[in-house]
């Protein structure tokens, strides 16, 4: 009897306990009438001397590491070529599951996956893509040497495309004799592409870095049962240095129109592509002792009307992941965080525009809190979203600009330490 009664009481008690545990405390309609106002402050500060160093580094990403290769022609302003190396070419083909040695070639063509630009950037006039044999024993990554190899006696193929035919993949026939010679002798084939057009043109192709390179397609037999041979780019030079030779399977060279470096200007993108490195000095009383709610890197854009002034590209602020042990800025700029990491957002900018641009970097600045600069350097990089694939170049005034008002600065909005919570 005693235990039974105790059981009932405990059961009822437990039910009420559980019911009593649920809470809903959210309210706010009574404000401000019932909410005593105690002002705390949100402070807004612009620190002009916050950028202690900034620099532009040309040639990033390094040659061969571009996600896309860029074939461009802008008259006398810009001329870029694409080099593809096929240092090993298959010597057999398959027919009805039987391998046969290639002794003749019916067709040989370059299959180039075209990365479609938006409709504003597409060519409006026919473009001709010429393929040249650019194999040489000379230093073959130097554009001045390679440019001399684009001559008529080395032309191995060309094709003119109507604007409407520039869709997803271009097929450029090349000399079957040249290819057969390489196949039979087991030697390498290195092709240089050049674009010719009556108007300025920019074409982007996939590269080995994006796993969609320009391949060599060989049809060794007219028999429909014969499988075409597809040869992917491969570089075997420099010898025994795979970390260097690998990326050189395909790359872009600038024959004419390299972007110049001016100390008063920070350049993002362009040809060869460039990145910007910036180092900040933000007082620890702000970083460590407050809560930052907004951090805007304010840069004044300088109009650059040399190339595609109206074609917008994205400029990304990125975290520099290299620590202070990496003192070479160019090396640091190769260790960057992913786009969007720390909530860093891009800006779409046209090279020909001007004005103050605000990059919101609060997510990155917050990571500096409580961290010494030896662990979390106060640095940031700017990179073009079309680096290596479009010539657009976005320029900003640097800290060396004559006019102080246009130099980079950092605007920080923060919540100071307050004695909140005391009624």
């Amino acid at each position: 009897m005693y235990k039974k009664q105790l059981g009932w009481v405990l059961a009822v008690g437990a039910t009420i306990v559980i019911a009593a545990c649920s809470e809903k405390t959210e309210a706010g309609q009574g404000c401000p009438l019932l909410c005593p106002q105690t002002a705390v402050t949100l402070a807004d500060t612009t620190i002009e001397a916050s950028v202690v160093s900034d620099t532009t580094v040309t040639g990033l990403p390094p040659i061969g590491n571009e996600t896309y290769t860029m074939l461009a022609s802008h008259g006398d302003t810009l001329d870029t070529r694409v080099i593809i190396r096929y240092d090993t070419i298959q010597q057999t083909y398959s027919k009805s599951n039987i391998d046969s040695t290639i002794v003749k070639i019916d067709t040989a063509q370059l299959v180039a996956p075209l990365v479609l630009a938006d409709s504003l950037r597409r060519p409006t006039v026919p473009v001709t893509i010429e393929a040249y044999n650019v194999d040489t024993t000379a230093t073959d990554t130097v554009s001045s040497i390679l440019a001399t190899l684009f001559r008529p006696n080395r032309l191995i193929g060309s094709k003119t495309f109507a604007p409407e035919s520039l869709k997803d993949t271009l097929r450029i026939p090349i000399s079957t004799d040249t290819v057969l010679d390489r196949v039979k002798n087991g030697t390498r084939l290195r092709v240089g592409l050049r674009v010719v057009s009556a108007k300025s043109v920019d074409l982007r192709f996939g590269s080995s870095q994006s796993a969609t390179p320009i391949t060599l397609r060989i049809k060794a037999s007219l028999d429909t049962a014969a499988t075409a041979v597809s040869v992917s780019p491969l570089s075997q030079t420099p010898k025994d240095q795979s970390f260097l030779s690998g990326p050189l399977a395909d790359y872009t060279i600038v024959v004419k129109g390299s972007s110049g470096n001016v100390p008063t200007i920070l350049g993002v993108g362009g040809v060869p592509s460039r990145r910007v490195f910036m180092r900040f000095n933000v007082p620890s009383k702000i970083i460590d002792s407050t809560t930052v709610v907004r951090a805007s890197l304010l840069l004044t854009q300088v109009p650059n009307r040399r190339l595609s002034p109206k074609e917008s590209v994205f400029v990304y602020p990125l975290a520099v992941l290299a620590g202070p042990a990496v003192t070479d800025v160019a090396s640091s700029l190769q260790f960057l965080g992913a786009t969007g990491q720390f909530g860093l957002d891009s800006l779409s900018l046209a090279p020909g525009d001007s004005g103050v641009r605000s990059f919101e970097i609060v997510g990155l600045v917050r990571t500096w809190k409580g961290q010494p600069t030896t662990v979390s350097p106060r640095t940031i990089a700017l990179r073009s979203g079309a680096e290596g694939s479009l010539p657009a170049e976005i320029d900003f005034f640097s800290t060396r600009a004559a006019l102080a008002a246009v130099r980079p600065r950092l605007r920080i909005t923060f919540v100071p330490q307050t004695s909140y919570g005391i009624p």
Partner: protein
Amino acid sequence: MMTRRTNRRARGWATRSRMLVVVPALAVPAFIAGAQSNLSSQGFGFPAGQFSTRAHGTGGAIAEMDPFSPVNPATIGAFNSRILFFQMEPEYRSVSTATGTERTTTARYPVVFGAMPVGNNVVMSLSASSLLDRTSTTSFNTTQIINGGQSVPMTTTFRINGGIEDVRLAAAWTPQPWLRVGAGLHGITGNNLVTVTQSFADSTQFAAFTQQRVLGYHGTAGSLGVQLLTSQVVASASGRLGGSLRLSSEDTLLATANVPSQFGASIAYVGIANTAISVRTSHENWSALGGLGTQGLVGVDAWDTSVGGDFAGPKIGDRIVYLRTGYRHRTLPFQASTHTVTENSFSAGTGTSFANGRVLTDLALIRASRSADLPATEHAWTLSFGISVRP
């Protein structure tokens, strides 16, 4: 003073129960610091009353003579065996203003109590009760002016958990059958976990943030009580003398004040078997807490008066079912928008024993109306359930 992010629970076991800066910084109001959005838990919080469920059933009228209410230390002399008591008390509150009515639910565990006789007519007890409960969450939208005419809409949420507790070690002596005297030592403790979250409509430029801060309370007090018992009347009186009270954050002392002193007295007619009809009044100088808060905080010295009865009702088997009712009027400790808040409440309750008297259960229902000279009213239903066990 440093704020910090922490997941540490601020509620204890009884807490819920109861360079070159070239542009000068532009200061603008950003958020509020103590928003409760109701009438009852302004300032340092709502006084749950330190009443047992049984006392609540009578509107608090028998609190001075109720041994389960940690008010009068002399009352524990009534215990002739070891006993444990626990109480839970959810409150369902609605606040009506010109902008509408909001409903909230707050869970409280306002009294935990244990007592045991130690011989020579002396009984000792240890209890923890809620002195002020500050638990609340307030969200509101404002537009922040940053500079140069720039503004951003934002939402601020203030979440406050915890309160100030009264931990009492008490002893009572019964030298004569008609006299009980008692004394208590009080440790005033507890904390508020204050969480401020602010988010912005423009999330591309502004990043939301959360700050947390723990406000700790530490103080002391002493109390004395007396009961005179006759066959017809029980007269009780008690007083608590507040010592110093410190408010700190982390290891930084923010402010000092005094624990509110309190005295109360009641007289009850007990001429009917198992029945008590009582009237009680008490006074508490909450203004002593004023120095603990900001300049705008106004503590109000408050009277708390009630009348009620605890009646022997019908018998079920061999157990008596008690029926209780009462009315209470009191002033709440802190003003809302410079206006004093008063509370009127009606209560009803019941209680009985189980397991050969080893288990006592009580249930009370309280309907409270709170008002001030403001276009806002507050109503609350409070369900109180108490259980005591004699091991």
